[in-house]
């Protein structure tokens, strides 16, 4: 009999039957207040009626239309809709399936656009589990241990919002990006890492970051 990898352990005992808004219902009919949202994914709640209707309608007309073979209407509509919400000037979009793939795509584009190999990341960030994304991740050794060699060309800068307790104390310095600037294609940061607060000092620190001269 097949079973899940022992590494795929669930953090809670819940076996979900259905979800509605911020609630998960299990098979015994118990309801659980879901403040995880699938790690921040179910933005409109579980099974928002409008999202369900749109997906159901699409399932009945076209499920898969490989996007470098044919164009499909949902892709055209989504590209237009993102144009309304993306920051001004960021109007060219590439689509992938997961956060890690987006990290890989950003890495690849930065290197190809600049011709420079190095990436500066900020201490404490999580960018995913594929080799490139894991190489840029510094939120825990467990995400990058045991499958070396990782991708070279990643330079870690101290982050102003590091914890002041434990082993990471004493790193409240300015980021030293200039040291590696000539080879550096881009800097990558998460606007707010899950564990750290916005403080006025972190905002000032971010504002001091400057493009390479």
């Amino acid at each position, binding site marked *: 009999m097949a079973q899940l990898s022992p590494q795929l352990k669930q953090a809670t005992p819940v076996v979900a039957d259905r979800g509605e808004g911020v609630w998960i219902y299990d098979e015994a009919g118990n309801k659980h207040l879901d403040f995880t949202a699938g790690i921040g994914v179910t933005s409109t709640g579980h099974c928002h009626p409008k999202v369900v209707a749109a997906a159901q309608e*699409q399932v009945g007309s076209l499920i898969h239309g490989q996007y470098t073979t044919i164009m499909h209407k949902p892709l055209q509509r989504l590209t237009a809709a993102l144009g309304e919400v993306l920051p001004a000037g960021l*109007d060219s979009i590439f689509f992938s399936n997961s956060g890690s793939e987006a990290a890989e795509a950003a890495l690849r584009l930065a290197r190809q656009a600049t011709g420079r190999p190095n990436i500066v990341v900020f201490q404490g960030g999580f960018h995913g589990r594929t080799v490139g994304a894991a190489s840029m991740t510094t939120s825990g050794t467990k995400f990058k241990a045991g499958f070396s060699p990782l991708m070279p060309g990643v330079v870690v800068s101290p982050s102003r919002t590091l914890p002041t307790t*434990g082993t990471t104390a004493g790193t409240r310095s300015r980021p030293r990006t200039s040291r590696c600037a000539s080879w550096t294609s881009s800097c990558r940061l998460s606007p707010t890492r899950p564990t750290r607060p916005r403080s006025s000092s972190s905002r000032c620190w971010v504002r001091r970051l400057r493009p390479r001269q």
Partner: protein
Amino acid sequence: MVDEVQTGFGRTGAFWGQEHFGLTPDIQMFAKGIASGFPISGIAASEAVMSKAWPGSQGGTYRANAVACAAAVATLEVIQEEGLVANAAARGAQLKAGLEEIAEKFDAVTAVHGLGLMLAVEFTDKDGEPDGAAASRAHQHAAKNGLLLLTNGMHGQNVRFIPALVVSEDEVNHALSLWEETLSAVL
């Protein structure tokens, strides 16, 4: 480059997390909240930057799946129509204030971090070290009491609160009362 995978689509109480910091990225990543659960992500850049991608560097069998795209369009509409960015800011402020008030009552809870509906409570032991064991006990107890949360941090010392952007005032209050009960039981 800015990684908006988790911070995008209203999560932090602004549409993009970068708005809190006045950032203007050359390349931006997005994923998670875009499609309410369907797997779709991507990057955005200016035409000038994106046109520097080499031939053959972008493609993929399953990317931009039609059902995921349709769900994403509907998600963006719901975020707009239901004012979910403003709701994330308001409910986030309510949740943060409540978590801070509860934190006052327990020595082991030393900080409440985050923006909007992306919050974390940090546990510290008597010696001032990050306390992953206490965070884990709180997380497990909360789950048993019907409140599902996440943990993270270098030492597993944080318990995270990251509900859907549609969460109501009553639901936030309900979570806060379950959280206070949890801390009373485990600390």
